[in-house]
């Protein structure tokens, strides 16, 4: 399964209002779930952040967790209009956030495979200075698709 097929334009916000890390996580979760399910996911994501920031460096963060609140792998993406503090490992602000939530058990461990893929794609976006390039969610999905194919060709 390719990453682009897991993305939907409704869950890509390229004009995310800057805010605290918790607010950004909440915003992205609420594009996937509402109510007590959303609260459960936010709580688990924040507990994961307590273990160490998922800000992997070079402007990118990938908050992630498994939760009973979802039945399939769900992804939302946000690009903040101004970089935000995410306590990233390189101590630099973050502007692109991929948020991943997976059910507790998923066939073929799609969660960890997808997580690994996103890390790889995100690093490629940074390397090629592509984070700010897409102007619409459709362009963002097309770009992810292209990067994913390019990585696939190199293997």
């Amino acid at each position, binding site marked *: 399964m390719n990453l682009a097929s897991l993305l939907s334009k409704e869950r890509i916000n390229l004009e995310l209002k800057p805010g605290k890390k918790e607010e950004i996580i909440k915003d992205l979760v609420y594009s996937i779930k509402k109510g007590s399910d959303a609260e459960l996911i936010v709580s688990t994501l924040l*507990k994961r952040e307590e273990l160490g920031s998922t800000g992997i460096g070079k402007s990118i963060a990938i908050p992630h967790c*498994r939760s*009973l609140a979802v039945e399939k792998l769900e992804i939302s993406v946000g690009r903040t209009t101004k970089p935000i503090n995410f306590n990233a490992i390189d101590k630099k602000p973050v502007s692109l956030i991929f948020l991943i939530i997976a059910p*507790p*058990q998923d066939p073929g461990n799609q969660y960890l*495979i997808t997580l*690994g893929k996103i890390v790889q794609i995100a690093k490629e976006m940074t390397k090629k200075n592509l984070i700010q390039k897409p102007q619409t969610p459709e362009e963002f999905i097309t770009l992810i698709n292209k990067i994913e194919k390019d990585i696939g060709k190199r293997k």
Partner: protein
Amino acid sequence: MSDVIEMHLKLLFDLDTLLADLEEPVYKKIGFKIGDTERMALLGRRSDLLKKLPREIAEVYEMLKKRYQQAIAPVENGFCFGCFQQLPTQLLTRSKEVTTCPNCGRILYWREK
């Protein structure tokens, strides 16, 4: 079961899943390495959460976790999604009491629609 107990049980379950993922070699290979101090702190949070549950429910949860790993299971279309057995009709209505599957014993919850 009450909303508060259900929320605590779900949180506990998500926390256990998180702790299990930290041990996955694939997870470490991706680059997410977690220190022992942070892991211990998370275990402390787990212990706090367990204390918030009524003792008998906490004990059932721990026993089921040892037996199945997944101690709680959703009800879907009249089935326990832990053991995939059909549930008796009287258990299909959401109750304020903690409901367990008569076949596998897992604590049942209803998904939000």
